[in-house]
C-alpha cells in the first residue's frame, strides 16, 4: 500500500481493514447543479440524458423505455395493492449533488442517530447516510481498489463512466439480460437510470478481493435508479458487494434498481446485497443473471427495512452445466412487506439451481416468498432444489408462499420444501428463564433461524446483520 501523499481529510475508520482512506486528495468535481424537477415526462428524460452528456442511442433507449413504462399497467393483479400508493408525479427523478436536499445533523431523528452509534458507523459516514452530506469521501479508498484491480485488466467504474468510456462492451450486454419491457419498474429504471456500477472482468482473471460499491459511495450511487452491469468473461471470477447495513435515511421514497449479470463460459459471479431501507421506501428491484456453459452465479440477498420490497433475483441457465443459486433472508417488521423470492429459468441440459429463502415476520410485518422455477420438457439432467422457511414472531405476523415450479419431461428432478415456524411462548420463556431479556431471547431465536445462511455472508456483513437483528428485536418488544 502506498503511503498517503497528502493529508487533507481526517482519517476515517475503515470498515474494510487494510485500505488506506487518508488519501483524500481526489474528489469528484461537482460542477453541475441540476434538478430535473418533479414528475416524469419526455423532457425529464431528455434533461437527464443531456446532463450526463450521453450519446444519442442512449437517449433513444431512455425514451423508448419511458413509453414502455407509461404503457404498462401496475402489476397489481398479482402484487400488493400498496403499489398504487406510489405517486409518480411527486417524485424527483434526477437530483445532482448541487441540488441535494439539505438538512442538518440536528434534524436527524434521535433513533437514527442511535442506530448509527450502535452499528459503529464512522462519524463521517453517518452524516452521509443521514442525508446531511451529499458525498461520503471514500474516493481515496476506491481509487486504490480500482488501481489494484486495473492491473488485472478489470474495469470497475460507475455506470455513467462505463457508458462513456467503454461503450463497445457496455452496449453489447446492456439491457440484454433484463429487457426494458420486462416489467413496469425495469422500464422506469431504463428511462431514468443513473448511478450503479459497471464491471468487466477479462477472461481467466480471478479478482482476489470482493468489489464493493461501498468504496464508491456518492450521491449518485445511493440514488434511486441505479443501473448495474457486471460481465465476467470466460473462466473469470468476481465477488461484488452492494449496499450497507446502516439504515439509509432517504428523502426519496421510490427506489428502483436494475442489476444485470453476465457469466460467460466457466465464469463465476457472486453478488451480495445487504439492504436496510428506511421504512417509507418502496424498493422495487429487478435483478437477473445469465449463466453460460459451466458458469456459476450466486445471489446472496438480505432485505431488512423498507415499506415494500419486491425483489426476485433470477438466473437464466443458458449453457450446459450452468449453476444458479439464490440465498435470501428477509425481515419484515411492523408496517413492512418483504415480497421476495427467486427465479430460475433452465434453458440447457444438466443445469442446476438452488433456492434457499428464509423470512422473518415480526409484529404486523408481512413476508411473501415468490419463486419461479422453469424446466422445459426437451431438457434432460436438470435439477432444482428449493427450500423456503418462514419464521413468525407474533400471532399477527403474516407469511405467504407462492412457489411456481414447472418441470416438464421425465429426465429432470426438482425438490421443494417449505416450512413455517413460530417462535413459541415456551421457547422465549425457556430463554428468559436462563436470564435473557425478552428482546435478547427473540433476537437469539431469529439469529438461530438464519444461522446457516448468515454463515455464508462475509464476516463483517454477518456481524452487522446480527447487530441489526438485535436492534429490530429490541424495538419489537412492547
Amino acid at each position: 500500500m502506498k503511503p498517503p501523499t497528502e493529508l487533507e481529510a481526517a482519517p476515517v475508520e475503515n470498515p474494510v481493514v487494510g485500505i488506506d482512506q487518508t488519501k483524500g486528495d481526489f474528489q469528484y468535481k461537482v460542477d453541475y447543479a441540476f434538478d430535473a424537477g418533479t414528475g416524469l415526462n419526455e423532457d425529464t428524460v431528455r434533461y437527464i440524458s443531456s446532463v450526463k452528456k450521453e450519446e444519442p442511442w442512449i437517449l433513444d433507449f431512455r425514451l423508448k423505455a419511458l413509453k414502455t413504462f407509461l404503457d404498462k399497467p401496475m402489476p397489481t393483479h398479482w402484487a400488493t395493492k400498496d403499489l398504487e400508493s406510489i405517486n409518480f408525479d411527486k417524485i424527483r427523478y434526477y437530483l445532482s449533488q448541487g441540488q441535494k436536499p439539505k438538512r442538518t445533523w440536528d434534524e436527524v431523528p434521535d433513533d437514527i442517530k442511535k442506530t448509527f452509534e450502535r452499528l459503529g458507523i464512522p462519524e463521517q459516514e453517518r452524516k452521509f447516510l443521514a442525508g446531511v452530506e451529499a458525498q461520503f469521501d471514500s474516493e481515496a479508498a476506491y481509487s486504490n481498489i480500482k488501481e489494484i484491480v486495473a492491473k488485472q485488466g478489470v474495469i470497475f467504474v460507475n455506470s455513467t463512466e462505463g457508458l462513456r468510456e467503454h461503450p463497445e462492451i457496455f452496449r453489447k450486454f446492456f439491457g440484454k439480460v433484463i429487457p426494458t419491457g420486462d416489467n413496469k419498474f425495469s422500464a422506469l429504471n431504463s428511462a431514468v437510470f443513473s448511478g450503479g456500477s459497471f464491471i468487466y472482468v477479462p477472461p481467466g482473471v480471478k479478482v482476489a478481493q470482493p468489489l464493493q460499491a461501498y468504496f464508491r459511495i456518492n450521491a449518485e450511487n445511493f440514488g434511486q435508479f441505479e443501473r448495474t452491469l457486471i460481465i465476467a468473461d470466460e473462466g473469470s471470477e468476481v465477488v461484488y458487494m452492494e449496499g450497507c447495513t446502516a439504515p439509509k435515511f432517504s428523502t426519496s421514497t421510490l427506489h428502483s434498481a436494475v442489476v444485470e449479470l453476465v457469466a460467460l463460459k466457466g465464469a463465476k459471479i457472486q453478488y451480495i446485497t445487504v439492504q436496510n431501507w428506511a421504512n417509507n421506501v418502496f424498493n422495487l428491484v429487478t435483478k437477473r443473471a445469465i449463466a453460460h456453459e459451466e458458469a456459476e452465479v450466486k445471489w446472496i440477498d438480505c432485505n431488512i427495512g423498507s415499506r415494500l420490497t419486491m425483489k426476485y433475483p433470477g438466473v437464466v441457465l443458458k449453457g450446459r452445466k450452468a449453476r444458479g443459486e439464490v440465498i435470501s433472508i428477509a425481515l419484515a417488521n411492523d408496517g413492512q412487506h418483504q415480497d421476495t423470492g427467486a427465479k430460475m429459468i433452465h434453458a440447457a441440459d444438466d443445469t442446476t439451481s438452488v433456492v434457499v429463502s428464509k423470512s422473518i415476520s415480526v409484529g404486523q410485518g408481512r413476508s411473501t416468498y415468490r419463486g419461479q422455477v422453469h424446466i422445459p420438457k426437451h431438457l434432460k439432467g436438470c435439477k432444482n432444489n428449493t427450500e423456503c422457511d418462514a419464521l413468525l414472531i407474533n400471532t399477527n405476523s403474516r407469511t405467504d408462499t407462492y412457489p411456481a415450479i414447472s418441470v416438464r419431461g421425465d429426465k429432470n428432478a426438482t425438490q421443494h420444501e417449505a416450512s413455517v415456524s413460530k417462535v413459541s411462548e415456551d421457547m422465549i420463556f425457556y430463554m428468559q428463564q436462563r436470564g435473557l431479556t425478552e428482546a435478547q431471547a427473540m433476537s437469539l431465536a431469529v439469529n438461530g433461524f438464519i444461522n446457516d445462511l448468515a454463515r455464508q455472508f462475509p464476516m463483517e456483513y454477518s456481524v452487522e446483520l446480527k447487530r441489526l437483528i438485535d436492534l429490530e428485536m429490541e424495538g419489537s418488544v412492547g
Partner: protein
Amino acid sequence: MSKLEIKDLHISIGDKSIVKGFTLTIKQGEVHAIMGPNGTGKSTLAKAIAGHPDYTITGGEVILDGQSVLEMEPDERARAGLFLAFQYPSEIPGVSIANFLRAAVQARMAEGEELDATGYYKRLYSKMDMLKIDRKFTSRSVNEGFSGGEKKRCEILQMAMLEPKIALMDETDSGLDIDALRIVADGVNAQRQSAAAPGILLITHYQRLLDYIVPDFVHVMWDGRIVKSGDKSLALELEAKGYDWVKAEFAATKA
C-alpha cells in the same frame, strides 16, 4: 445464606385454581423433594414461581432473600438466582449450547463488562466432563434432536454453569434410564457439595430418584398444597403404601 419463602401461594390457569395455599421455605444447601400424583399442581408450582405467563398468581407471596419475585419478569427472577430445570426443555434451532450459555452468563454481568472467553470455555468443559457430555455438544443446537437423557443432562449443565441460589427441578428423572439417572444425580450431588450449593426443590413422582439424590425433606402434595412432610423415610413409606394412604389421611383430617 439465601432462602426462598413461598407463603400461602395460590395459582390458577384461566379460571381454574390449581395451587391452593402452598407454603414452604427452602434454604440454600437444602434439598426438598415434592412428591404426589399427577395433577396435584407440582409442575404448575415450579413454572409459576419462575414466572411462566400462562399462570396467574391469585394469592400469597414468593420471596427470595427478602425480596418479592412476583412483580419481576422471568429473566429478572433468573438473574436474581432462580433456576428452573424444565421437564420438557425447549429446542432452540441454530443456537449452539456454547453460544446460548455464553449469552446467559453475559446477561448476569454488569453492563460494559466483558466475558473472559478462555475462562468461560474452561469452566464449560469441566462441567461437561463432570456430566459426561461429549464436547461435540457445545456446537450442537440447544436441545435440538437430543434424546430425553441428553436434554436432562443439558439442563443440569446449565444449572452448573449459572450457579443459582435456588433450583426448581421439575421431574428431572422422567424419561431417564438408570445410567442417565445416575449421571444426572451425580451432577446434582456435585453441586450440593460445592461452596455455592443451591437450595433445591425436587419435583418427582418416584422414590427412585431419591435413592440417588437423597433429600433433606420430603413433602407430599395433594390438591394444590402440602398435606404431609417428613424426612427421606416418608418417600419410602409412600413407595410401599402408595398415595391413596395419604389421600385417605387427608380426607379424614378435612372431615
